C-alpha cells in the first residue's frame, strides 16, 4: 500500500464522519442557498473545528460564492478545500540535527498518547536504520517507566531511565549526554509526564527539562512535539498555546484518529498558533503512525 493509500485508510473514519457528511450536504442536488451554508457550518462544528473557525470558514465561503458567482456544489467544495489547505499550510518535515543526535521532546496533557507515539516514532526511525534512544522522563506516573521500556523493546531502541520520582530533567540530560557518548544514538526521544497546561508548576518543570537539554546540546531539542488527542474539543487550542509558550512546540502529533473523532480542532490550532501537524496516530500498534501531509489530508478530507 502506498503512502497515500495508507493515509486514506487511516483517515477512513475521519473521512466517513466529517467529509462524507460535507459531501452529502454539498453534492446533494440543490442550489446554493442559506440553509446549505448553515448545514455546512453544522458539519464543521460537529467535526470540532470550533464555532468561531467554522463561522469564519462559512463566511468566507459565502463571500466567495457571491464574488465569484459560484453556482454549483462542486465549486463550493473546491473553495472550502482551498481555504482549509491554505490554513493548514505546506507540510513541514521533522527537524534533523546534521551534526549529532536529533533530540525530540514529546509533551502533552494526560493520556493523549505521548508514550505510545514515542514507541511508534522509535519504530519509524529504527526502520530507517537509525539508532534510537528513549528517555523515560515521566518519573511521576505509576509504571510509566515500565511502559516506555516495553515500547523500547518492541521498537528495538535503547532505553535510559532513573528511579520513579527522580528529576525528569536529569533523565533528559543523561539521555542527551549518552546519545553523544557511550550510547551513540542518532535520535533521542524524551517521554514526559502528562500535565495539564494550566498547572504552572508542572509547566515550569517542562521549561526546566527543555533548558537542561538545550544547555547540554545547543540547538536541542530540535523538535518538540505536542501530542493532541483527536477526541479533544476546543480546549486543544489552550493546550497548544500554553505548551508552545513554555516548551516551544514545533509540531503536533494528532492521535486516536482511528475512532469517530474528527480532530478538526487542529485547523483552529494552526490558525491561532501556527503549529503544523506532523503525525497522525491511527491505532495502538507500532505501525499506526503516519506522517501528516496537509495536501493529502485535505484531499482525503473533501474527496469522499
Amino acid at each position: 500500500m502506498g503512502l497515500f493509500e495508507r493515509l486514506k485508510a487511516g483517515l477512513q473514519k475521519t473521512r466517513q464522519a466529517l467529509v462524507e457528511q460535507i459531501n452529502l450536504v454539498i453534492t446533494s442536488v440543490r442550489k446554493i442557498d442559506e440553509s446549505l451554508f448553515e448545514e455546512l457550518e453544522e458539519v464543521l462544528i460537529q467535526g470540532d473545528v470550533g464555532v468561531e473557525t467554522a463561522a469564519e470558514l462559512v463566511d468566507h465561503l459565502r463571500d466567495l460564492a457571491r464574488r465569484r458567482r459560484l453556482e454549483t456544489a462542486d465549486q463550493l467544495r473546491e473553495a472550502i478545500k482551498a481555504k482549509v489547505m491554505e490554513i493548514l499550510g505546506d507540510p513541514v518535515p521533522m527537524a534533523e540535527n546534521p551534526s549529532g543526535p536529533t533530540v525530540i521532546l514529546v509533551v502533552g496533557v494526560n493520556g493523549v498518547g505521548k508514550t505510545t507515539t514515542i514507541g511508534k516514532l522509535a519504530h519509524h526511525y529504527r526502520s530507517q536504520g537509525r539508532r534510537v534512544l528513549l528517555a523515560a522522563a515521566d518519573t511521576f506516573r505509576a509504571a510509566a517507566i515500565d511502559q516506555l521500556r516495553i515500547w523500547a523493546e518492541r521498537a528495538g531502541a535503547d532505553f535510559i531511565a532513573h528511579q520513579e520520582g527522580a528529576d525528569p530533567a536529569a533523565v533528559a540530560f543523561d539521555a542527551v549526554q549518552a546519545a553523544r557518548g557511550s550510547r551513540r544514538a542518532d535520535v533521542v526521544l524524551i517521554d514526559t509526564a502528562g500535565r495539564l497546561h494550566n498547572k504552572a508548576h508542572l509547566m515550569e518543570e517542562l521549561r526546566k527539562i527543555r533548558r537542561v537539554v538545550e544547555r547540554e546540546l545547543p540547538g536541542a531539542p530540535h523538535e518538540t512535539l505536542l501530542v493532541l488527542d483527536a477526541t479533544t474539543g476546543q480546549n486543544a487550542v489552550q493546550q497548544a498555546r500554553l505548551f508552545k509558550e513554555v516548551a516551544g512546540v514545533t509540531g503536533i502529533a494528532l492521535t486516536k484518529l482511528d475512532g469517530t473523532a474528527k480532530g478538526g480542532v487542529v485547523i483552529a490550532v494552526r490558525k491561532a498558533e501556527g503549529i503544523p501537524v506532523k503525525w497522525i496516530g491511527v491505532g495502538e500498534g507500532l505501525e499506526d503512525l503516519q506522517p501528516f501531509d496537509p495536501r493529502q489530508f485535505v484531499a482525503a478530507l473533501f474527496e469522499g
Partner: protein
Amino acid sequence: MAMFEGLSEKLQEVMRRLRGKGKLTEEDVAEAMREVRRALLAADVNFKVARDFVNRVSARAVGAEVMESLTPAQQVVKIVHEELTALMGGEAARLAAAPQPPTVVMLVGLQGAGKTTHAAKLAVLLKKQGRRPLLVAADIYRPAAIRQLQVLGEQAGVPVFSLGQEDPVRIATEAVAHARSQGLDYVLVDTAGRLHVDQELMAELQRIRDAVGPHEVLLVVDAMTGQDAVNVAEQFHQQLGITGVILTKLDGDTRGGAALSVRAVTGQPIKFVGVGEKLDALEPFHPDRMASRILGMGDVLSLIEKAQAALDAQKALELQQKVQRAEFNLEDFREQLREMRKLGPIDQWLALLPGFDQIKKQLPENLQVGEKELRRMEAIINSMTVEERRHPEIIDTRRKHRIARGSGTTIADVNRLLKQFEETRKLMKQFAGMEKQLKKRMGKLGRLPGLPFLGPRR
C-alpha cells in the same frame, strides 16, 4: 487569546445587557439565545444538544410570565441556569451498594480517559468510608497497565487482583469470587481503554458484564472531550447499559461541555469528577456548579465553600478591613501565607472565581506558588524585626542584607517578597471591590474572604 475565553466574556456581556433592560422584546431574547448557543458550542457542548437546549429555553423565555414580569432579563438568566442544571441531572448521585456484597463496579471508556487512576481514587474514597475495596487489573493490553494499578493499589493501601495477561472475563469472575471469600465489599474492575467502534473489544466488555453482573458500569470521560462525546457515550450506553459517569481532568481549564452531552444522550448521572492526579482528588458531582462553569459564570458556590472550609472567616474579615484602611502590613501578609497553605494550589481555586477571565489579565504571569515557596517567604518575613514588618517602607538595602542572611535567602528573594507583598496589597483592594459587586448580584450567599495574591516569582 483563547477563543472561548472571548466567547464566555461575550456571553456574560449579553447577560449583563439583558439585565440592563427594562422590557424585553422577542428579538432581545433571540439575540441572547444565539449568544448562549455560541457559548455552549465553544464549551464543547454537542451541536444537537446545544440546539435542543436553546429551543427549550427560548420557548420558556418568550412565555408571557417572563416577558411581563418586572425583571424579565433576570428571569431569562434564571431559566438558562435552571435548564442547564436540569439537563445535567438535578441532585448529586451516589455510588450503588449491592444488597449482598460485594458491589461490583466496572470502569469503562476510551483510551487515556483516566480509568486506572480513577479506579484507584474510588478505592481510596471507599476505604475512607470504611469499606473494603478490591482493585481488579483487567487491562491486559496496554503495556504496564497492570503494574500501574499495582503501584496505585499499594499507594492506596488497597489489594489488587491480577492474573497477568489472562482473559479479562476470567480475571473479573475470579476477582469477584476472591472478594467474596475474603469479605471484601467492593470490586472495582479496571478495564482496558477501547474505541466505542471496536466491536471485538466492546464484545469483550459485554462478556465481562454478563459474567459478573456489575451493580455499576461507570463510563469514564475526559472533560476535555469535544463533539465526539456524544458518539462515545451513546455507543457505550447502547452496548453496555452504563449506570453513571466519571468526568475526569476537570482541574484543567476546559469548560467541560462534554458533561452536558454525555448526560443528555445517556440520561445517566455524572457521579464523580476527577480534579487532580493525587488519589484523593475525586469529588461528588454538583450539576448546578457545572452549569455555572459551562456558561463561564464562575463556580461561586464551590469557591465560597472551599474558602470557608479552609480559612478562618474572622481572620479574613480583619484582613480585609485592614486592606481597606490601607493598614495591611507584612505581619498580615504572613498570616495570609499561612492561611494559603491550607487552601492548596492557588490556580485551582482561583479558576473558580466568577469573572476570573477578566481578572486574570491583570494578574501577574505566574501565579503558581508551591508549598516550598510559601515556606521560604514565611522564613524571610520571620527574619524581619517587628518594626520592619509593620512598616515595610523602612527596609533599606542594609536591612535587606541582614534579612537575607537571617533567612538563608538572597537579596533578590527579599526584593521579590516585598514586591509580592505590594502586588497582594493592590490586588486585595480590587478583590474587595469585586466582592461587593458580587454580593449585590448574588444576594446573601455568604462572604468571600479576602484572599492573597502573589506576584511573579522572578
